[in-house]
């Protein structure tokens, strides 16, 4: 058993607009975002962080990747009002 199975247990009004991005020019490829994200939205490709294409459907909006990004490459904003994660049992 792994708690990784639980990451699908997330309720969403999937946002229509992008609310996160990474600037490859600034990314130093440290991988901190890859380690810290508990729903696996990041991977390293060519020594740069890459955001999964379906991140809007899975992101918990915790902001941890943005918080650990020491090079300032990751931008994070909340999804548009009324969209995004719906926490039912917070």
């Amino acid at each position, binding site marked *: 058993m792994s*708690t990784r199975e639980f990451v699908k247990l997330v309720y969403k009004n999937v946002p229509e607009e992008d609310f996160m991005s990474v600037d490859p020019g600034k990314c130093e490829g440290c991988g901190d975002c890859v380690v810290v994200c508990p729903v696996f939205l990041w991977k390293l490709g060519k020594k740069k962080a890459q955001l999964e294409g379906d991140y809007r459907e899975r992101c918990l909006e915790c902001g941890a990747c943005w918080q650990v990004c020491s090079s300032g490459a990751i931008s994070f904003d909340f999804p548009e009002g009324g969209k995004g994660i719906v926490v039912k049992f917070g």
Partner: protein
Amino acid sequence: MKKYDLIVVGGGPGGSVAAKTAAEIGLETVMFERGTVPGEKNVSGTGLSPKCFRDFDFMREMALPHERVATMATLHLSDDRNVETNAFSFSPSTNAPYPEAREFLTRNVYRSELDPWLAGLATAAGAELHTSTKVTGVTRDAKGKVDGVRTDRGEEFKADIVIGADGVISTVARSSGIREKWDPSEVAMILNVDYGAKRKDIDLAIGANALHYWYSAIFPVGYSFFSAEGFHVGLGCYVDWWKKSPHYYLDRMFELPGVQQQIKLCKGKAREFQNHMVTFLTDPKTTYGDSVILVGDAAGFACPFEAEGVYYAMYSGMLAARVAKNALGRGDTSARSLAEYERAWRDSPIGEEFVGGEAIEGFVRGIGFNPDAGRWVVPLINDAMYGLLNVAESHTASARNLSSLLMPYLPELVDTLARDLVPLAVKLQKPPARKPGARISRMLSWILPKVLPFIAKMAARQEENRYGEVTTPLIVEYFMKPFAREKAARSKEARR
């Protein structure tokens, strides 16, 4: 365009109490929440402390459908084999300082029930609430002074003061220039799985022993907290701490038979996966600016020991609304005028929490959030108990062996005492009534380092006390007893 006295960004407990207080004291107030309902974005450890009910009359009216009152908490210890070796519980003290503190440890609730209820109190008091509305930043007048906010619907709202109650990531704090994002060392990430269960199953398996902490030599400190029909199982640590995926540590915690037992006995069904950040500050320094006041997590007001946030958010929300009213009365909403806010929170239970900030942080980083410390803390506690209570040998033999069982831990224990616990104890002491004399302090600093090592060496060499049979009962009778009587009498007097 309608102009308000006060804009509150964020419909959590901090924002709602700010808006409620402001509306009650006559301020035209509007509050924005990005979720479709307040609480929709929020995750908590679920426990409301007795302080919430001591300090807010309206909280005593709280009646949420899925509350569980915790009157017992249990700390579980597990070692570097991932074996649970110990569990200790505690309950409210009958000598606790006020009624609620004597009644319960926490009242465990869900934010999806608490937050809408609090927001309802704010709107009932006359505050306006806009849900599904994200504030994208503050607006400024021709002179560059903050004069409102802009929403993602392209609308602008104007007010003399903006309260940022918008959490750890706080758009208000950043867009108003009060600060950039926190340093990673100042923020923790806490993830958990929420389980649903039947009330009767939790009643049977857990009852009111509804707060469980799991301290480990492998994963950062975890918890399982129970509400009426569900529970959270998770753990957290500073965002700059994780060397492996958080799931690696969460898996180790879930492997503990004690955790599995709770899930199985409650017949829990995993319902939701959650993660959130909380601030862990030693001293909040960025809590206001020109025309802007920050409350709750936006200001960094979570308790740096246990990450309790709701109470501090509510309290700072109340203070912020009062300060806003005063500043508007003075006709001056500059940072200089709003400095009243910092004086107010420092002089409140919030400020009290940060008196020992740095020392508490040292303790949390050194032991609480540090599984490496668990490698010796857990066996030390276990061996002490084992040494006293085991039946593997005669109790005479066990008692004689106790010191050799514990001595190996001594250097690490003393190191930790010196590094993490002594500074904490010194910092949390009440300042002395009479100032210490400089000459005596100098003398003590000179003489103690010369005398103490000598005494220490002598004490460590002492193998046996030939006169123990004579001296031990005499020490108890003529030193310990009078000391205990005098101390107890003085403490009773002080409490009166």
